Structure formats: C-alpha cells, structure tokens
C-alpha cells in the first residue's frame, strides 16, 4: 500500500504534476508569509507603529486641486478620495484627448499628402521616443513661463491666461435651469429613437435621410429654446483680479494642464500607430469592393474600413489607456495632487505608514486598471465579427 502510493506519485503523471503544483503553491504561500512576518517583526523591533487608524485622524494639510471640498481638518481618508478623484480626472481627460489626437494622427499618417504625412511621422517618432516624464516637465515649464498674474493675457474680456492657470467664468445655475438640462436629455433620447426610425425607413425604402444633420439640430436647438422659455436661468461669475489672485470664476491649474498635455501627447503617438496598423490590416479588397459598389469615400471609411479596423485597434488601445492611467502617477514631479502625490506622499510622510498607504495605493491602481480592462473587453467583444463569419 505504502510503496504503491509513492510509486503512484512518482510515475503517475497526474499525481506527480499535482504534487509539484501543491509544492509550488505552498512554497509561494510560505514566502509571502515569511515576508509579512519579517516585516511586522522589523517594524515592531524599530518601534514603528502600524495599522489603519491613521485614516481617521485629520490630515492637517490643504490640497488646492480638488473636485470635492477639502480642508486641513478633514481626514486622511478624505484626502485619499480627493487624490483618487484627481487621478481619475486626469486619466479620463487624458484618455479622451489622446484618443482624439491619436485617431487624427493615425489617419493623417496614411494620407496621400506628403507634407501632412511626414509632419505626423515626425510627431510620432519624436514624442514616443522621449520619456513621458521629460515631456511633462517640459510642458509644465512652458506653462510656468506664461505671463504672471498681474500681466494676464485677456481673452474675450472674461478669460485670463496666466502662469497660475487658465481662469474662466463659472456658471451659476438659477431656478428653472434643471428644465433646460432635462430638455437636453430628452432631446438626446429622442434622437436615438429617430435614428432607429430613419434606419428602418432606409431599409424599407432605400431612401437615405440626413439623420446626422437633423439630430444635431434637435440636440442643439431644443435646450436653447427652453433656455429662452425659462427666462435665461443661467448667469456667469467672472474672475476678477483682487489682491494676489483672481477671485471667483473657475480655474484650470498649470499642473493639470502640464499633466494633460504630457500624458495625452505622449500616449496619442502610440495610439496613432495602433490606428494606422488597424486601418492597414483591412484588406485592400474590401476598399476596392466598396468602390466597385459605388460607395462614397467617406462612407467607405465609416462603414467598411473603421468597423473592421476597430477589431485590431481595441486590444492595444486598452493597454495604452492603462499606460496613461498608470503614468498619471508622474504628477508627483510637477505637484499635481493625484493619489500618489497627496495621499501617497504627504499623508505618508505625516503618518509614516508607508506600507499601509502604498498597499492602498497599489490596490487602487489595480482596481482602476482592471475596471478599464473589463469595459474595454466588453467593447472589444461588441466590435468583433458576429456570427460564424
């Protein structure tokens, strides 16, 4: 019985691989366990406190770039959320801008115009071969050399460009504005159904309708009409130079702009290459066949080429979005108050809880990245070939 058991382990492939796998997992678990134990032991030995109690004591510092109110009396936990929102803000804005620039440049690189094609080529080769940190610092330095606050560049009377940011009037919503907002929502939903209606009509009769024009008009004019009906329930608070700074209005800080330009211009270069390869991957025959059918060139691009190119574009595009999001942690270099800078930097220093805070920051980035992957994978599925093609 005993010998039989050992024989089985050594000579039976299934049992053997099972044994090896459990061994590997066991060793790995032991490794993690030992590291954790050793760290806890070392921390205790050096008299360094640990734990998550610090999250509920007041942070004691201020953050000026923030989406939710924050004062120095708020807790470190709230500082975490302020940082998280700033990270998400730069990630979302950056991905959006990078996608637009990337698609444009990718298409221009395939253009038949020699000048445009080569300008795009130089842009791509330059930006993707210079480290993104260097670019961020470059754009930030340029922004810092804008005029000082007292010599602000005035645009349309109420907009000011200075090295402390771009100041603009902020909207004040008065009674009745919600109706205007709702009218816009309803208009958008209405155009959605209208589009389906026109499409059905087109399938039945073959007649084409200027869907895009009609829908745009509905979306633009509905809220405007309601705006006047409700008696213009919107006012603007313009920034005014008072003392050291502008009072009132809204401001976009140079730290944010530096990050936005740095991240999106850098990532757009990679996206443009992805887009180019996606378009090239669609076989020449597709284009020739659609030309033979007499489709207009803009229809060929929109209806034939792009949908097929997207299959190739989406997976690498996802990884570019992930890169951009992770690179947003470079905000620390220019003082953009993201998760790593505020919570992972200042809070860490005030409380000394390096391990706890870094674990939280890591888990947060992991969650953000996995969420992006999840939705991009969903989208990827929706653009793949349907059926058994």
């Amino acid at each position: 019985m005993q010998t039989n058991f050992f024989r089985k382990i050594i000579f039976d492939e299934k049992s053997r691989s099972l044994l090896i796998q459990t061994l590997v997992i066991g060793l790995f678990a032991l490794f993690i366990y030992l590291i954790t134990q050793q760290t806890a032991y070392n921390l205790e030995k050096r008299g360094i406190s640990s734990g998550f109690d610090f999250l509920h004591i007041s942070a004691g510092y201020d953050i000026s770039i923030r989406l939710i109110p924050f004062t120095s009396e708020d807790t470190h936990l709230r500082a975490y959320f302020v940082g998280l929102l700033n990270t998400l803000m730069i990630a979302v804005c950056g991905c959006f801008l990078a996608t637009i620039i990337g698609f444009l440049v990718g298409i221009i690189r395939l253009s038949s115009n020699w000048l445009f094609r080569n300008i795009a080529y130089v842009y791509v080769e330059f930006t993707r071969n210079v480290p993104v940190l260097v670019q961020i610092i470059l754009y930030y330095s340029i922004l810092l050399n804008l005029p000082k606050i007292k010599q602000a560049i005035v645009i349309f009377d109420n907009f000011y460009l200075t090295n402390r940011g771009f100041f603009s009037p902020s909207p004040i919503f008065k009674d009745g504005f919600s109706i205007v907002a709702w009218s816009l929502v309803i208009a958008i939903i209405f155009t959605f159904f209208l589009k389906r209606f026109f499409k059905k009509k087109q399938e039945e009769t073959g007649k084409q309708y200027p869907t895009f024009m009609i829908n745009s008009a509905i979306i633009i004019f509905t809220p405007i009409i309601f705006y006047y009906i409700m008696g213009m329930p919107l006012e603007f608070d313009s920034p005014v130079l008072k003392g050291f700074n502008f009072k009132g209005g809204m401001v976009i800080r140079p730290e944010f702009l530096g990050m936005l330009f740095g991240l999106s211009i850098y990532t757009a270069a990679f996206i443009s290459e992805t887009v180019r390869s996606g378009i090239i991957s669609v076989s020449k025959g597709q284009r020739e066949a659609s030309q033979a059918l007499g489709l207009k060139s803009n229809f060929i691009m929109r209806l034939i080429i792009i949908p097929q190119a997207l299959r190739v574009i989406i997976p690498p595009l996802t990884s570019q979005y992930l890169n951009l999001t992770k690179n947003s942690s470079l905000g620390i270099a220019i003082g953009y108050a993201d998760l790593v800078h505020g919570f992972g930097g200042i809070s860490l220093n005030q409380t000394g809880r390096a391990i706890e805070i870094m674990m939280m920051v890591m888990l947060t980035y992991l969650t953000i990245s996995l969420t992006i992957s999840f939705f991009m994978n969903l989208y990827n599925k929706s653009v793949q070939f349907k059926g058994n093609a």
Partner: protein
Amino acid sequence: MTKIKSLFISLVLTLGVSTAIAGSHGSTHDLVKERGKLMCGSNTGLAGFGAPNDAGVWEGIDVDVCRAVAAAVFGDASKVEYVPTTSKVRFTVLQSGEIDMLSRNTTWTLSRDVDLGLEFVGVNYYDGQGFMVNKSLGVSSAMELDGASVCIQVGTTTEMNLADFFKANDMSYESVPVETNSEADAAYTAGRCDVYTTDASGLYASRAGYPDPSAHVVLPEIVSKEPLGPAVRHGDSEWADIVRWSLNAMIIGEELGITSANVDEMKSSKNPEVLRLLGVDAGYGAMLGLSDDWAYNILSQVGNYSESFEKHIGPNTPINIQRGLNALYKDGGILYAPPFR
C-alpha cells in the same frame, strides 16, 4: 484520497522549512567602525546647512555634525559618505539602516520621535517657519497674505503649520506643493506663487541664491517652533549617546572658548572641564566607547559650534543669519549643553 495525501505531504514539507529568519542587527557603532566610514543622511542641497561646494565637498552646519561624529569615531572628520535625502524619504532611509544618522535640518516633533521609530539627540539650530515675498508686492506682514498662492515643500511640518496659520487667521490661500527646495525656488521666482514658506533658515539660504536677493523680504512673523537636529534610529542608545555628545562637545567647546586654532594650547589649561573635554583627564572617552581624544579631534578638525555657524551661515556669509536664538544661553540665546562631567 491521493489529493488529500499529497496536499498533506506538501504541507509538512513546506512547514518544515519555515524556521524564523531573525534579523540580527549589530550595534551601529560596530557597524560604522567595521565599514570604516560614516553614512550620513544630508539635504539634497541647502546652502549653509548641507550642500556640496564648488569642489564637490559637502559643507554646512548640518554637515559639520556628521564630520564631528566621524572625528569622534575615527579621529578623521573626512571619513563620511553623504547620502542626499529628500524631505520625503529621509526617515525611511534612516529606518531601513541605509544611513547611520540623519543630519538634515529636520524638525524634532513628538510623532517623529515616538511614532516613526527615531531618536532625536539634540538641537543644532533653533528655527521657525517664516514667509518670503517679493518686495514689489508691498507686503510687510504675514497677516496681509489673504488669497495668496503659497509654494511649499511637501513632506514637511511646514504644510501643517501653514494650514493652521491661515485657518487661525481666517485667511484663504492656494497651496502649490513642490518636491524639493530647488523646485520651490524655480516656482517662486517664476511667479507661480506669491509666497515661499519654509523654515526661516531655508528662506535665507534660498534667497542668497537668487539673482537679486535684495528684491525679496522675509516677513517678521515666525509661525512655528522648528528645533532642527540630528536623529538616529530608536533602540541603539550607545550610538545615540555618541552622536548627542559629539554635538554637545561642539557647543561646550564654544562655551569654554576652545577653537580649532587654540585647541592645542588649551590642553595645558587650568580649567578641569577643559581638561576632561580634551581627554587630558582620561576616562570620559571610554564611557562612550571612544578614544580619550575624541572631543579633541572634533574641536581640532571641525571646530566649535560658533566657528561652524560663522563659517557657513553667519553674518559674514551670503546666507547672513544672526545668532539670535542660537546664541549660547550666556549670550542671550537658548543654546545649552549639559555639563561635561
């Protein structure tokens, strides 16, 4: 059945390996002697306190504390390797054992002393947080700073003092966080912020490096207590004693009028405290585990506190700081070392 058995066997195997790996740390003093040089955490560059000079040699009053410890341990003040640390990593670098001591204009606070596992061994500069503005703004008091943009180095006690000061006086401000002193200088001179706040000593040091130092004024308000001093890891009291008394030796040296120039003559002094300090009366070095001439080495190679102060940050240097609080208790300051006996 097989599954459970194989799992059991693998568990036994893995648990067998799990003997505790106890980290064995010798005393810092032994480690330093073995290595043959002192690893000293310094600023990344703060003129007068800790910065490399034109020849690449580190200089400053914080650096002199490192040199004093090296003189005490090795009899050679030059046996120091300086590890530049930012305000953010300085404690981690010390905790992890990468450096033996930290002498880097660091404020002694309760939480750092207790919670971070550090031990502050003394104060080599009594400082306080101040504000610097451009003269053209016409500001003469920190109470007039409502609405200003303030440049501030992150990871310091300064940002908390700043928040408290503006809150207490019901004023608003925009904080512009920067990572290092030089970045703060760049942002301040570019006009990204109206005010630069840090320890007053740091403001003087920064100002000395600006193209036109006279265009900037340090406001009279000092909004905090910032006792700056060297720190070591908690739990090695012998090493802490060596660093503490190396600094004290410099202060006592000034008190007794011993300078690097007259230290040899003073060996034949009549004053018993001088004789004890310079090791003519033997026995005090051994208490610290050092040679009897340890303090003699400090005073002959580094000099006393006053020499260090005047050489690096005194009124005859570009930094131009008066002794003020940092004068000896006999001269109206609060600098005071326990007696050498």
